[in-house]
């Protein structure tokens, strides 16, 4: 049996870490998030406790979840670096790896490789107002961001969150949403496309509409972070334009098919930039100068 590759080749000086080798993790807990059961949140603990420190991340980054015999999938990190002792990922059941992952149980061993990519621009966002706009299951790194901002509340101005899903049962992180709604140091706007629940006490309407009604006016100190399905982004962007948000203050997170996650395998590029390494976070101003290959 050979030595773990991370220690291998220290003798060659420059290649100490093998960036393709995942950290071994154990599934600690699995939560089914949505009524269609297609979204599950996996909480992992590192099998080697020292790996948690090496996996130092910021909200907006992602990791490759590694399942032996199946492969790897790039998934945004849903936990916040302020939450210690575990990392969390919410996974939509789509393909080979994610479907298999959905069949796995607490206690199972798998791997996590990362953190990968850039993050939301936290240095830029310090002292600013932040408007988070999310739709559907693209709320995972936004959850990470909200938890992170609330833990560092004095570093930010106003915080607005607009989050919508098709139905109440399709909203992620149900309990947390309600807790955020009750807070007085942030403005939480939960919405659904439609519901026949007479007790629904939040908004009804598409995310762009709610954004138009609830988003604060644009100024130099206000940034919007948008994550959602293409259709939501398509209709939200004109709303932000009307509100006067400059494109350098509209921040988006992209997805593309990925394998290596470190800018080498060649498939996730948009022009000369790689979504995995130069992104996944770009400003709209940046995206305006890039091909629409995402």
């Amino acid at each position: 049996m050979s030595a773990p590759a991370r220690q291998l080749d220290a003798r060659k000086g420059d290649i100490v870490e093998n960036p393709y080798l995942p950290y071994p993790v154990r599934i600690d807990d699995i939560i089914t998030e949505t009524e269609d059961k297609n979204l599950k949140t996996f909480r992992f603990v590192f099998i080697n406790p020292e790996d948690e420190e090496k996996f130092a991340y910021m909200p907006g980054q992602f990791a490759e979840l590694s399942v032996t015999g199946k492969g790897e999938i790039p998934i945004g990190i849903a936990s916040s670096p302020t939450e210690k002792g575990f990392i969390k990922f919410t996974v939509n059941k789509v393909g080979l790896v994610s479907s298999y992952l959905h069949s796995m149980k607490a206690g199972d061993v798998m791997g996590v490789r990362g953190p990968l990519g850039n993050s939301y621009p936290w240095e830029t966002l310090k002292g600013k107002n932040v408007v988070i706009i999310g739709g559907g299951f693209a709320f995972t790194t936004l959850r990470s961001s909200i938890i992170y901002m609330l833990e560092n509340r004095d570093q930010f101005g106003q915080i607005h969150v607009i989050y919508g899903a098709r139905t109440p049962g399709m909203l992620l992180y149900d309990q947390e949403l309600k807790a955020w709604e009750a807070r007085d140091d942030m403005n939480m706007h939960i919405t659904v496309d439609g519901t026949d629940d007479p007790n629904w006490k939040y908004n009804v309407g598409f995310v762009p509409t709610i954004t138009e009604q609830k988003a604060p006016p644009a100024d130099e100190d206000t940034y919007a972070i948008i994550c959602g399905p293409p259709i939501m982004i398509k209709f939200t962007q004109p709303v932000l334009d009307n509100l006067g948000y400059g494109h350098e203050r509209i921040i988006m997170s992209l997805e593309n098919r990925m394998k290596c996650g470190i800018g080498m395998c060649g498939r996730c590029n948009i022009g000369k930039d790689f979504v995995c390494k130069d992104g996944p976070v770009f400003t709209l101003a940046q995206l305006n100068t890039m091909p629409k290959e995402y």
Partner: protein
Amino acid sequence: MTFVKIDQKKWAEGVSALKKGYQVFGPVKEGKDHEFRKLSGDQMPEMDYGNTRLSPKAAIYPQSEVMFTYTTDERKDDHHILKEPERDETPKAVIGIRPCDAFSFLLVKKNFDTPEYKDPFWLRAYDATTFVGYGCDDPCSSCFCTSAGSGPFDEKGLDVLLVDHEDGYLAKVLTEKGKALTEKAGWTQAFDAGQAEKVFGEKAATAEGKFESQISTDRLADIPSMDLYDAPFWEDIAFSCINCGTCTYLCPTCWCFDIQDECRGCDGVRMRNWDSCMSSLFTLHGSGHNPRGDKVSRVRQRFMHKLKYYVDKYGDGIQCVGCGRCVRKCPVNIDIRKVCEMMNQYDPEAQNECACPTT
């Protein structure tokens, strides 16, 4: 810089001697073409060739290679834990590589050796390899290395450069690695440097005079990327393409790869395999959405990557060494020299004027 003379007898003895300390790769005739293969037993490099059909990149970067092994048998303590397999760490010698191909490794290295991440598989193999080049006296009509940053006697990326001389070779020893290899091979018969430089210089001048084609790349960096991306010629260029991927597989500078898991019983491997931007699956999302779902966008990606994105990203020329393989082997005669010319000559403003129906 030292020069050594290698006669036919010394050549054969030397290659045999090298096999005792190196995994020796060389050109071998297979069917109509030559290929780079690991030479076994008494196999000798067959040096009477123009260039190999596939590039020698597989000597460093195999078409398929095992990255990790694991067991899925949960009765074992280390189940689901990935490990690097034992590898043959014997140094490699690539003998008879053409200068354009040796240069290609320097371009590919920019991808695998970055400030943030090092690809250990590629870099270990590259670092363990000594490149013994072979000058080109007779470039093909489709070669254009002299205008792609290389040349028929280019020394970049080489440890030793051989040229034909009398009944054997003259070798220019370029690096410490090259010196170690020539000593191991017993190629130590010193040759007068002044005289040797003259032989090399004359050969290079003669060969360079034989080139029939060249490309211009001087404007590529200056034309805005989105203008080239939106240029009207991509439909025409891609029209005949059948997305077969031949160009990407035989290109010395194409490095894209896929990662796949495979299991037999409980014994699994994580492999990496060459991949191709010509394939639709290369970019297909799990949702079914495909950002490069049509062949025009894939053909554009290949040429934009080599002739624009790479140029912009590294500021050090194009991602092409002018070996001409894609020109020779494309089944529908798509020619990177013509595409490069169209890109390099492209004037977006002239386009706009022509395209405006009201003027």
